[in-house]
């Protein structure tokens, strides 16, 4: 069986419009498909990062004072005593902000040298008693020790400044890439020296969705929170008891402070959901639009092939009459479609690379992995051929007698 390309090319040359339109559709669809798939996989990778926290059983209550009469230290210890007395509570602590949200978030920087020399490392500060904080967050200390009770300063420490700090592992690695951070000294923005007392397993601090602080950069300072009049209570409950404990705690604490008010109550599960919502929604939008685009492109291919079959009925009948088999007719249309797809794929690849380049420079996204381009071409090619299959098969069933008809 000889595959004669010439009649194909001459047919294309005579009415190129349809072929050009499909080529354009294929090109745009490929460019979008490849880049969208890459972007979606990036976002999914971000979604799969573990929080390092027990999000199912932890909630936070953000409180603030309403007047000068609000004694923050006393309010905190009253609230903690109450919370720890509730049945179903595994651990409770007080800190500056609620993890996975920007609430109460305090971001700062740490330097390896005093006088703000060298590159600073951005970090989120979660102050408080590290022992109860880490146990409430269910985060183990990998190295070093916790703060001692006498090392923890009151909310407004005056001239005293903290001398120790506990870092997450990612933060320790960012500050000391070559080794053990334990025992070394880092400096805060006022050039106060802080000895690294301990290193905790990675967890996400009070960083919101965006922000310039890397997700796992969190540090603990031995200062009782509440200097600004705000503090966050974090509670971890036994599995299944979170909602009832939350309700009871919110009711009691909300009514127990004359000069304080609850700003927000939030479960870490809801915070995690909100935190991930942006990534998830963008991924969904990208996927939906790309899927629709593929569908529309396939429709175009289907339509063009059907049209070609319809307008070449006599030619097909003639070819069958002089001996072409059904297989040859099908092959004719499939090969023609393949030529169009190849042209579209070539144009689309150039377009895809251009779009990827623009995304990298204008949006700061990482470079496109060429494996995605290859996969995109193959997928589009296969789908495109499948779209032309049915009309091609219908063409094959055109009887040879059509050639001799005059109507």
């Amino acid at each position, binding site marked *: 069986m000889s595959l004669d390309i010439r009649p194909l090319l001459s047919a294309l040359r005579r009415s190129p419009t349809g072929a050009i339109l499909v080529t354009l559709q294929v090109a745009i669809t490929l*460019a979008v498909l490849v880049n969208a798939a890459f972007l979606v996989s990036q976002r999914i990778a971000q979604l799969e990062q573990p929080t390092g926290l027990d999000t199912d059983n932890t909630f936070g209550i953000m409180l603030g004072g309403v007047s000068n009469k609000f004694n923050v230290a006393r309010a905190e210890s009253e609230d903690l005593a109450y919370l720890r007395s509730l049945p179903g509570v595994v651990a409770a602590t007080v800190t500056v902000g609620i993890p996975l*949200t920007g609430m109460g978030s305090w971001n700062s920087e740490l330097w390896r040298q005093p006088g703000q020399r060298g590159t600073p490392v951005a970090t989120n500060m979660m102050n408080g008693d590290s022992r109860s904080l880490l146990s409430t967050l269910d985060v183990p200390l990998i190295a070093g020790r916790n703060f001692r009770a006498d090392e923890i300063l009151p909310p407004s420490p005056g001239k005293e400044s903290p001398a120790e700090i506990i870092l997450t592992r990612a933060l320790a690695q960012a500050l000391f890439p070559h080794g053990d951070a334990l025992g070394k000294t880092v400096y805060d923005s006022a050039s106060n020296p802080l000895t690294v007392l301990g290193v905790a397993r990675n967890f996400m601090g009070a960083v919101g969705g965006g922000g310039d602080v890397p997700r796992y950069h969190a540090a603990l300072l031995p200062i009782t929170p509440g200097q600004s009049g705000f503090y966050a209570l974090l509670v971890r409950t036994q599995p299944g008891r979170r909602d009832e404990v939350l309700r009871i705690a919110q009711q009691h604490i909300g009514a127990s402070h004359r000069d304080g008010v609850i700003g927000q109550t939030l479960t870490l599960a809801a915070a995690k959901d909100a935190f991930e919502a942006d990534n998830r929604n963008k991924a969904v939008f990208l996927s939906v*639009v790309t899927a629709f*685009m593929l569908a529309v492109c396939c429709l*175009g291919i289907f339509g063009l092939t059907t049209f070609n079959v319809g307008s070449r009925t006599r030619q097909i009948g003639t070819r069958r009459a002089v001996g072409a088999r059904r297989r040859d007719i099908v092959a004719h249309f499939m090969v023609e479609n393949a030529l169009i797809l190849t042209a579209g794929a070539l144009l689309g690849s150039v377009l895809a690379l251009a779009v990827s380049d623009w995304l990298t420079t204008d949006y700061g996204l990482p470079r496109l992995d060429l494996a995605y381009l290859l996969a995109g071409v193959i997928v589009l090619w296969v789908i495109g051929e499948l779209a032309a299959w049915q009309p091609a098969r219908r063409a094959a069933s055109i009887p040879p007698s059509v050639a001799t008809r005059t109507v």
Partner: protein
Amino acid sequence: MLGYYLRLAFKSFRRTPGLTALMAGAIAFGIAACIVTLTVYHTMSGNPIWWKNDVLYAVTMDSWDPKGAYDAAHPQMAPDQLTYQDATYLYGSNIPRRKTLLTLVGGALSGAPDQSIPLSVLTEATTAGFFHMFDVPFEYGGPWNAVADSGPEPLIVLSREENDKLFGGADSVGRTILWNNLSFRIVGVLNRWYPQPKFYNLTGGGSGDFGRPADAYVPFRWDAILHRWPGGSMGCWGSGHIDTFEQLLNSECVWITLWVELPTAARRARFLDLMNAYWVQQHQQGRFQRPRNNHLWNVSQWLAIHGVVSSDSRLLLRLAFAFLAVCLINTVGILLAKFLRGASLSGIRRALGASRRQIFAQHLIEVALLSLVGSLLGLALGALGLLGVRAMYAHSYSDYGAAAHFDPHGILWALVLAALSTLLAGLYPAWRIGRVSPALYLKSQ
């Protein structure tokens, strides 16, 4: 003739219902995607007070650390808020026609009838000028006056939503309420006011750039008197520890926004001179050690430097346009095929005396009808899409969801775009069919 063409168009649709539905559907989806992304983009990039764009100015001075810029990503930018001493000094000037200081403060409202627990509220500590400068609409009462600012008098303005929550939406002017356990008298209740973005406070503190404005407003000096720590965003540098409110007032922490109304170029020049003179004086006393960077920003510049339009929304907008392009190219192809298939009918019509132009017109009407159907369907789908986006983002902290509300401008733009582009797409097929020679199709096939 129009009626005849319309009837022909309907007949043509009925002949190939599946194909017509497909075309209309594809156009509708393309338009819906564009409506959603365009609405969000338009909201994000809008200037909610464009009529005052050239008279309102945000004031910035670079009081930051000589060792590093306020924003490492934009080192030539001064901090977008001022220290207490700088803000109050510049506010004292008589050069601006109107002026206002703003800072966010946390607080609690209690004492309303039927209120069981105190309500936490976002409060803007500001001056009377705020309401006049930003054209804030009032439902009941009005703002306090300048005398109340200097007192300060215990007067408060509530947002409409807060008034609904506390008093069921009734006229609460004249009643007292406890703000942070102090008795305040309500002088005004705002009407619906939700400028998108919240151009006067883009520091991200409080409810974010697209979040709701404050729930309550009190005269600025209450913040100092009650020693209320700033509840919005604050940036500090320097070696001193700040434990007391006194220290905060004298520190280099920036937590106050200053807006001035300078309607003429002369006033702007004078105010800038004032800023420069103040800079020199403070510089000699050891402050302002960074290069001089005194600036007056009008609203659109202010929005631009804050990069309020998220890059994501721009990306998605372009994606939607690409999708619409594919849908339109598809439509061109299908229309071409459809018209050429029906060429025999056009051939007969030509033989009966129709001119080329009439054939063209007839097919253009068909395209226009298709465009209309597709656009209307697209509008409905787009509205659903916007609802969907709001639902998806209901619990997220992103600004995208807040910006996805029905914006008549955005939707109008999208519709016009859709109708025009579909019409353009159909031009080529209609023109092609007008050009075929009728004799070819009258012959036996």
